[in-house]
């Protein structure tokens, strides 16, 4: 899933909740570590083998490829290209355009994915009957494979048959070529993304809400604080850290969008929705230029690292 890749890591992670289920931890002391130092390496070895072969090796190999003109068709006989690929990437208008599309997508999708998820979680947390149904409705889309999301929504957006245009028609509005009109395609893929993944943030918020200590509300109730007052002065402040984390992770996830856009529009019409990852795919596999695609990957990686560090900095300053 593009927004939540399997091996997809993030720079931030909380303490596991279940630590609390275990009996109180004893203070760490190096003396209590296994004295059989030798076996430790064996525990770590299997993971490190995978890690080395499928993360470190490609990371270094990709960097090497980015300085060559490696091609999908050549049998490894590529020649050194120096910084040529990077120079080309910086002047390639399609790189900038797809980076721009990625940025637009990130902004357009992240805001509703955080705000809407929070609103849903607040409503569901209000202890209304039907908890199971709400959670099912909002989270179920998240467990669907992207191919299903794509098929259902291409039907929804179908100009003549689709539910979306039928609905517009009922309101007396003109039908829109959602996935084929440059003006609308980006909004269409954002809409699909919000529908598909909002449930994930919703669950995170729901968990955070349940962790807000009850005594705060009890105290507020004694003070006679109304619902709005409690929301603004207890719930939201208590969720600040969670919101920060969710926002940071959401932005990073949105920047890595590929699946749903590739399937819904193939980056079109006229490249108006093509994200940077699809440009990497198009360049490397459709256009055979593996070396150049690697260089663009590294440019994108650098941007991601800088953004994560910046976000982390802003975030930790706020917390301090």
């Amino acid at each position, binding site marked *: 899933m593009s927004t939540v890749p399997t091996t997809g890591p993030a720079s931030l992670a909380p303490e596991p909740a279940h630590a609390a289920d275990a009996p109180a931890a004893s203070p760490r002391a190096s003396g209590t570590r296994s004295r059989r130092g030798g076996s430790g390496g064996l525990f770590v070895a299997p993971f490190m083998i995978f890690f080395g072969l499928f993360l470190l090796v490609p990371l270094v190999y990709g960097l090497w490829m980015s300085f060559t*003109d490696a*091609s*999908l*068709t*050549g*049998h490894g006989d590529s020649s050194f290209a120096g910084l040529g690929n990077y120079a080309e990437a910086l002047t390639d208008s399609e790189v900038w355009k797809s980076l721009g599309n990625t940025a637009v997508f990130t902004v357009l999708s992240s805001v509703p994915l955080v705000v809407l998820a929070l609103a849903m979680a607040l409503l569901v947390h209000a202890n209304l009957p039907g908890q199971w149904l709400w959670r099912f409705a909002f989270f179920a889309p998240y467990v669907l494979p992207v191919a299903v999301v794509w098929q259902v929504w291409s039907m929804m957006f179908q100009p003549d048959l689709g539910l979306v245009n039928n609905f517009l028609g009922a309101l007396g509005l003109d039908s829109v070529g959602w996935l*084929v009109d440059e003006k609308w395609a980006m909004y269409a893929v954002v809409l699909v993304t919000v529908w598909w993944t909002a449930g994930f943030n919703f669950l995170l918020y729901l968990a955070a809400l349940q962790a807000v200590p009850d005594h705060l509300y009890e105290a507020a109730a004694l003070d006679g604080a109304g619902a709005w007052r409690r929301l603004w002065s207890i719930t939201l402040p208590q969720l600040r850290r969670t919101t920060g984390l969710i926002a940071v992770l959401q932005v990073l996830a949105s920047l890595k969008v590929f699946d749903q856009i590739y399937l819904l529009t*193939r980056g079109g*019409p*006229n490249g108006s929705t093509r994200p940077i990852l699809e440009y990497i795919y*198009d360049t490397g*596999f*459709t*256009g*055979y*230029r593996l070396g150049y695609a690697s260089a663009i990957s590294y440019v994108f990686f650098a941007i991601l690292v800088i953004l994560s560090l910046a976000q982390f900095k802003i975030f930790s300053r706020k917390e301090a």
Partner: protein
Amino acid sequence: MSVTTTRRGLLRGAVAGLSAAALAPALAACGSVAGSVSSSAGKVRFWHLFQGGDGALMRRMLAKVRADVPGLDPEDTVLDWGAAYYTKLAMASAGGRAPDLAIMHLSRLAGYAPGGLLDPWDTALLEEFGVPQARINPRVRALGRFEKQPYAIPFDTHPFVVFYDRTVMDKAGLLDSDGRLLPPESPAHFLEMAERLRERKGKLGPIMGLFNDTAQAWRMFWGLYSQTGGAFDLSGRKPGVDRDKMVEVVEFFQKVAVDSRSMDYPAGVAAFTTGQSPFIFSGEWELPTFQGAKFDLGASPMPTLFGSPASYADSHSFVLPHQDNADEGRRRAAHQLVAELLKGSMTWAQAGHIPAYLPVVGSKAYAKLDPQSSYAPAAEHPAIDPPAWFTGAGSDFQARMCSALQQGMRGADSAKGTVAEMLSGLDFFLSKPNPA
């Protein structure tokens, strides 16, 4: 709590999974749970991109082969046509475990790096199965060669043609006594003919339906430009083209498009089938759709307006995707399958395509096929995309040319401006290194 038991169940599942992982080398050996890479010699994994009417005909042809030739077992996979198809095919070939046989547009051959991603055909083997090279349309066959090796065996030619309503055309005096389109003598003459069609009450003249499409405008342009005999050389760093002739063609294009400037592909098809317009420039592959219309359907090759006859065309060809360790028996089977499909291509002609297998085109049965036989001469003057690594069916190049041409067609740009825009597109592609 029941949760604990399920957790235990999950763990047990994980352990079971681990033992599955231990068994997995056995799985890898058979390739897939379906066991597709078995050694049965007659199996041919065949990728193509035929859907709809074409797909149904191909399915019928494959079924016939299975019935006629015991032991030959084609396993066909249909993939989405376009860049996605060629990307997957290239990735499969680069990976070394490609399908045994695939369909490819001939126009893509130059860009497909035949040397790296395809294996050449054994023409002697094809002859052994009853298809000597001489029986295949020589014009398209020649285009399937690369470095003197045959890499693509053409299955058909599918040209850009004109379709019309015979009754309306006849009333306008535009058909000869055999019901064939009277040849226009010049672009001006053709426009005059168009005017005559437009005189019918409130109806449209000739239409094309290429707005927002990423191929049709280029197909139309390329066919007409090829008639001028102008150069279109993409081998250097600068395009070697005849700018004046390009302008001339675009100007004609602008005039003939007046009735369909903002018509997209489906709208064009609909306008023709519902009788709003009696004349459409389109691909012969729309024949099955048009045959559903309630009028006397006629067709002709693209009229010769600029000197010598030529129509844009492409060809579905058979290729052998590169395999690291090609199995001798399966290669043989692939050759046999292609021979059988070529010999049976009378069925294929029903879709409108002109078979590349000459005995079929020369047969009496084909002559009776109407209107297929009336545009069959188009296969003698096919204008296939100019050879370069970036051209061909479904390429960015075609899309870029189309967007320039549409600007000109809509009147948003002059003919000269349109040509300048096309040339800047060519400069862009020529500035990129050939990745193959």
